[in-house]
């Protein structure tokens, strides 16, 4: 039961990150490798704004968490759109591979740039306590507040995104750009705006995940995004990249696998090998992912 809660919370975080990957991929057919570093930036944004917000909302309260998440998301949305404008937009009409390599470059620049003592420094910093410390006891399991909050946030955001993509004008524009950029432009869609919006949205998701991840794991450093980023990327692929529900499903699956394997004495160190081994099997059986359908349009 306890492991179920742990796995659900961890999986929901992976799902949140995977949603960001999959959004950007859905619209641009491009993997934004810097996504994991936006998660790190989000965590640092939370680290810096939380102490300033604490007097307003009270130490360790739900209001504080919500406000911190919101501000970190806004900050990262700005940074994400900025990265898109500076690094990816000039390469819009170049081969996809060029943009991909640029994304890796941006990612490394952010990771190692932030390790410089003048930026954040390489040492691990303690993340402030944003939620009340006492746990909830539930069917024999001890659940921390954040582990309750995370799945709810993921669920809410998934529904919000689905609504945005399927029911709003911006969502329709995103689907149009995803389907065919040129045709969309001819139909009066402002491609640049749509793409900037997508990046901002994806980055905000990364920031939300970053803050929640740090509340849960409580130590942040400039390289913290790499491992969850990699896992979430795999989650997005397993779920069927480009598919929102698939990303969440993949994230939950990987979080559960990691938790259950990690808790087995004797093999706990092979948890990544085992969970990724299972991924290979899934992809062999369903090459386009669990919910991915070959050649069916999705955002």
């Amino acid at each position: 039961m306890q492991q179920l809660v742990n796995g659900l919370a961890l999986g929901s975080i992976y799902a949140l990150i995977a949603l960001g990957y999959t959004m950007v991929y859905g619209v641009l057919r491009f993997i934004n490798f810097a996504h994991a570093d936006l998660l790190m930036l989000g965590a640092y944004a939370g680290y810096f704004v939380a102490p300033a917000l604490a007097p307003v909302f009270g130490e360790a309260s739900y209001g504080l968490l919500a406000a911190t998440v919101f501000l970190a998301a806004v900050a990262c949305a700005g940074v994400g759109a900025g990265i898109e404008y500076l690094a990816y937009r000039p390469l819009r009409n170049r081969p996809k591979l060029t943009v991909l390599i640029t994304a890796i470059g941006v990612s490394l620049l952010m990771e190692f740039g932030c390790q410089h003592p003048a930026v954040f420094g390489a040492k691990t910093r303690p993340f402030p306590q944003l939620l009340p410390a006492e746990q909830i006891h539930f069917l024999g399991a001890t659940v921390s507040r954040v582990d309750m909050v995370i799945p709810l946030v993921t669920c809410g955001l998934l529904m919000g995104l689905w609504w945005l993509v399927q029911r709003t004008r911006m969502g329709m524009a995103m689907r149009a750009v995803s389907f065919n950029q040129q045709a969309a432009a001819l139909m009066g869609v402002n491609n640049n705006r749509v793409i900037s919006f997508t990046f901002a949205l994806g980055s905000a998701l990364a920031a939300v995940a970053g803050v929640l991840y740090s509340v849960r794991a409580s130590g942040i450093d400039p390289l913290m995004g790499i491992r969850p980023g990699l896992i979430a990327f795999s989650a997005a692929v397993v779920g069927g990249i480009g598919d929102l529900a698939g990303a969440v499903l993949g994230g939950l699956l990987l979080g559960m696998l990691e938790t259950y394997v990690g808790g087995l004495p004797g093999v706990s160190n092979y948890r990544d090998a085992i969970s990724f081994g299972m991924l290979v099997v899934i992809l062999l059986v369903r090459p386009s992912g669990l919910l991915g359908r070959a050649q069916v349009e999705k955002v």
Partner: protein
Amino acid sequence: MNRSILLGTVAAFCLFAGCQKPGGADGAIVVGEFASLTGKEATFGMSSHEGTQLAVEQINAEGGVLGRPIKLVTEDNQSKAGESATVVSKMISRDGAVAILGEVASSRSLEGAPICQENRVPMISPASTNPKVTRIGNYIFRVCFIDPFQGTVMANFATQKLKLRRVAVLTDVKSDYSKGLAKFFEQSFAESGGEVCARLDFNGGDKDFKAQLTTIKGSNPEAVFLPGYYTDTALICRQAKEVGLEVPFLGGDGWESEELVKIGKEAMEGHYFSTHYTPEAGSPKGAKFVEDYKKRYSGKTPDTMAALGFDSALVLVEAIRQAGTTEGSAVREKLAQIKDFEGATGRTTINGDRDATKSAVVMQIKGGKFQYVDTVKPQSKAP
């Protein structure tokens, strides 16, 4: 034609490099130091570096050794694997270091040691406790005890003082230090009648440990032995409280850093760890060291790593003085004969395995401070 230019250039470089080799132009003796000044174990590197630096400054103020001052060259390996070998070769070949002082972390000492052994340059590790370090070769020494002793100390403390019977062990599989300490703890704990009820692993640098901690909780231990470094340890102890694992944690000298309490906060309260030294159990020389250190570093109290860094430099200089030369093999001979050398951490005797025979202390975390609990002499039950 082309080839002669090339040869000329190579020859010029050789000459240039050759000129640089014998220390500085001022006749200073160059001693290299490699440490983790930044990164995950930064406080270890900084402390040992400050201790070493203080020792070198004091020696130079008294006129140096063999009539020559000592020049300390320091390189940072950023707490990363793979950097140490590079910086050690650089210090030996480019700076002309006659001896190398360094590393606290055993994994990184193990990277630097083969280079020193190959070049026949003596190396002294201030605080690497894994037995493998000095087995690299006869030029590698250390001024601290080793993990079989440290593991025994904690196992005895657990069974005799805390009266524990069931303990879970959580090991960092990336670290030689952690694996070694866990092994020796398990051995002696089992010998004195205890039972290890769960064995789990983590990867140093991970952020989420709840899966392992939940399994540990399910095995109902009376305590958890966690031979990790301070950053991981603090995160693990915080998450242990979150999954409701309310038992004492026991650890080794890798815990000793003020960052432990800064990151772990109240989750660290009541836990125990073994280490090399405490200012409270001091000798006259130790008391003087504490005073000098505070004066030099604006009131900071020295920790274990600082004291060991200090001693590593003193022991090296003592050997150079006795050898009457900086030649590697002569210094090595004298290092191997160091006996009852009085330093900041007490008496250091280098044994046949080039390890130091010393006592250990057990500390408890109370009110955010490290409090002295017990001293264990090496004779009591050292293997």
